[in-house]
């Protein structure tokens, strides 16, 4: 591999991107737009969930706990029920979407075993908000006492189901209960995949379409030089975009960042290798700019928005879909992003998803390097 040729190709590619308004907009404007759109638009926060209570103990302690819910902006205590049998009616009529049941022996159990159990029955017709309501309920309880646990129950009709929904640990890492904090780190993945795969999906197809490939093939350039030369500029653009996203997340949306920038840099580089190689592969295969960019879109945005867990938690998906998400490369990066932002995890703690990304990066780069043939048909 001759550095001189790689540099010539990278420089040419940069010039072309710089002079093409569409590519330039893609590279610089899309990150900003996506950040604002998803930061403001996708707000999964629920507020003022109507709550019914059934306080079977009726102690000072149990009332204090319920007052906590009243104080939270996420909940509104609308009705104090008398009998367990009233819960179903209240929910069916839509008077409340969450019912909190304090058992008669609540305080005593806590005193004896230091663990109390509170029943939270959720109207699960809307899965997502049910999950969030449960999570918020847990957070409120956790704020009240680390010793009290809630057993959440899902309910979609009569009779009341046995406990099904396990307590979400997610809120634990997102104490201020902002779903925005939960989503924004994942937007970085979406932006990088979108921009990276889109820009690279054009590079080879453009040469074919504009008729420059025939001449390029007749030069001494090797497929490897072409690959590296063509991806290097987009790698730099990708890192720049990641920087833009990061700045937005931290400064504009004030998302907490507890990890190390180096962890972010290493994993982002890996992810870029994956998406850029993928875009390149598509470009080599499809040979038309429109076709390639559409396939690239299909391969990135669709699976990432639906299956990477950036907005919709994977552990709440049906089991077969959960299994599919393991094949989605972005899932690992989203996991890493959230962990780095919210938990402050380092590379060691993230060994598994990082290794998965490494595997993807190697496989796709290898395929991309082999895909291009210096021949015309």
């Amino acid at each position, binding site marked *: 591999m*001759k550095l001189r040729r790689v*540099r*010539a190709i990278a420089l040419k590619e940069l*010039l072309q991107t710089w002079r093409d308004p569409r590519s330039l907009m893609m590279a610089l404007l899309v990150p900003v737009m996506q950040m604002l759109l998803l930061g403001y638009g996708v707000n999964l926060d629920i507020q003022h969930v109507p709550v019914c209570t059934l306080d079977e103990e009726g102690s000072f302690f149990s009332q204090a706990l319920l007052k906590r819910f009243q104080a939270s902006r996420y909940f509104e205590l609308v009705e104090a029920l008398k009998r367990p049998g009233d819960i179903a009616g209240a929910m069916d009529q839509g008077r409340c979407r969450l019912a909190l049941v304090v058992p008669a022996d609540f305080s005593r159990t806590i005193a004896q075993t230091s663990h109390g159990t509170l029943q939270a029955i959720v109207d699960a017709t809307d899965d997502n908000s049910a999950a969030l309501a449960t999570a918020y309920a847990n957070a409120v309880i956790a704020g009240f006492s680390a010793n009290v646990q809630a057993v959440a129950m899902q309910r979609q009709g009569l009779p009341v189901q046995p406990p099904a929904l396990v307590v979400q640990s997610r809120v634990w890492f997102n104490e201020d209960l902002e779903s925005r904090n939960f989503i924004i780190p994942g937007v970085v993945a979406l932006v990088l995949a979108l921009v990276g795969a889109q820009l690279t999906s054009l590079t080879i197809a453009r040469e074919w379409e504009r*008729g420059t490939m*025939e*001449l*390029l093939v*007749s030069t*001494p350039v090797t497929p490897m030089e072409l690959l590296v030369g063509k991806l290097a500029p987009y790698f730099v653009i990708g890192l720049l975009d990641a920087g833009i996203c990061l700045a937005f997340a931290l400064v504009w949306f004030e998302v907490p960042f507890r990890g190390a920038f180096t962890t972010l840099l290493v994993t982002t580089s890996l992810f870029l290798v994956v998406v850029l190689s993928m875009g390149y592969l598509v470009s080599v295969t499809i040979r038309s700019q429109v076709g390639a960019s559409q396939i690239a879109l299909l391969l990135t945005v669709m699976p990432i928005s639906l299956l990477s867990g950036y907005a919709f938690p994977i552990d709440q998906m049906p089991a077969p879909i959960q299994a599919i998400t393991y094949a989605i490369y972005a899932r690992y990066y989203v996991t890493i992003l959230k962990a780095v932002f919210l938990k402050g995890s380092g590379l060691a703690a993230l060994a598994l998803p990082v290794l998965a990304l490494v595997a993807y990066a190697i496989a796709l780069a290898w395929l991309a390097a082999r895909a291009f043939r210096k021949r015309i048909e």
Partner: protein
Amino acid sequence: MDAVVRASGLAKRFGGVVAVDGIGFEVSHGEIFGLVGPDGAGKTTLLRMLAGVMAPDAGAASIDGIDVVAAPERLRERISYMPQRFGLYEDLTVDENIRFYAELFEVPPAQRRERAARLLAASAMEPFRRRLAGQLSGGMKQKLGLTCALVHAPRVVLLDEPTTGVDPLSRREFWRILYALRSEGVTLLISTAYLDEAERCDRLALLQDGHLRFCESPAELRARMPGALVEVASTSPREVRAALAPLAGVRSVLLVGDGVHVHVDNAARVPQLEAALSERAIAFDAARVVMPTIEDLFVALLGPGAQAAA
């Protein structure tokens, strides 16, 4: 002289179309070898295979003793290929394009500057160095293409219809550059749609339907033409053609600039031609036997009924 380019049995088909059907020839060191033939004759396909950008279905080719089919990459630096379709980057300037290709061929910067300056001066392109290639005229694009193709000082140059769409003045510049290359010992293969350009080649390959029909010097080709060629100058060439075409011994009548070229089986037919025109009272200046142009040869050798004649 030694053959620099050797081809034998080269063949390529696209689905049902046989684009090149077993073509073989040799080109000597420092020769300008022309490829002529009607549209779809297989000129582009042949040049692509020789340039090592397209794999032939059958046959062998070598340049400078290097197997084009087996080791095209070993050949890249010695040869240069200018495709029929403009292959440069329209969103890059003239200088940026030249520099890009020079870098791919690892041309030392000093040599690049010197060669680029010389080639651009020779093709009157100096004032446009900072212009985007996409904003050049068709002729200027071709001249830029040639400059890029020559910047790495190739030993063998393959040019596919380089002068199509180029004005006559620029074509003259083009050919001056090509002759200069030949005098430096560069071997050139060039396809052309202009038959007057074919005249300038040392040897010509006449292609038709993927076959190599003739491969000789223009003079030898001329000698192949049976009978004689009579030029009749007239202000009403269509009437002349209508009058002469049905006559005995007339093989074809071709309209040329200021009259017609009549291909007859024998120079002795001239008085008959004149008589026929006088009879119909068609005004004409003179009828005289002339040297056939390549275009005449083309019609005579490849046109309808040519198989019988050849």
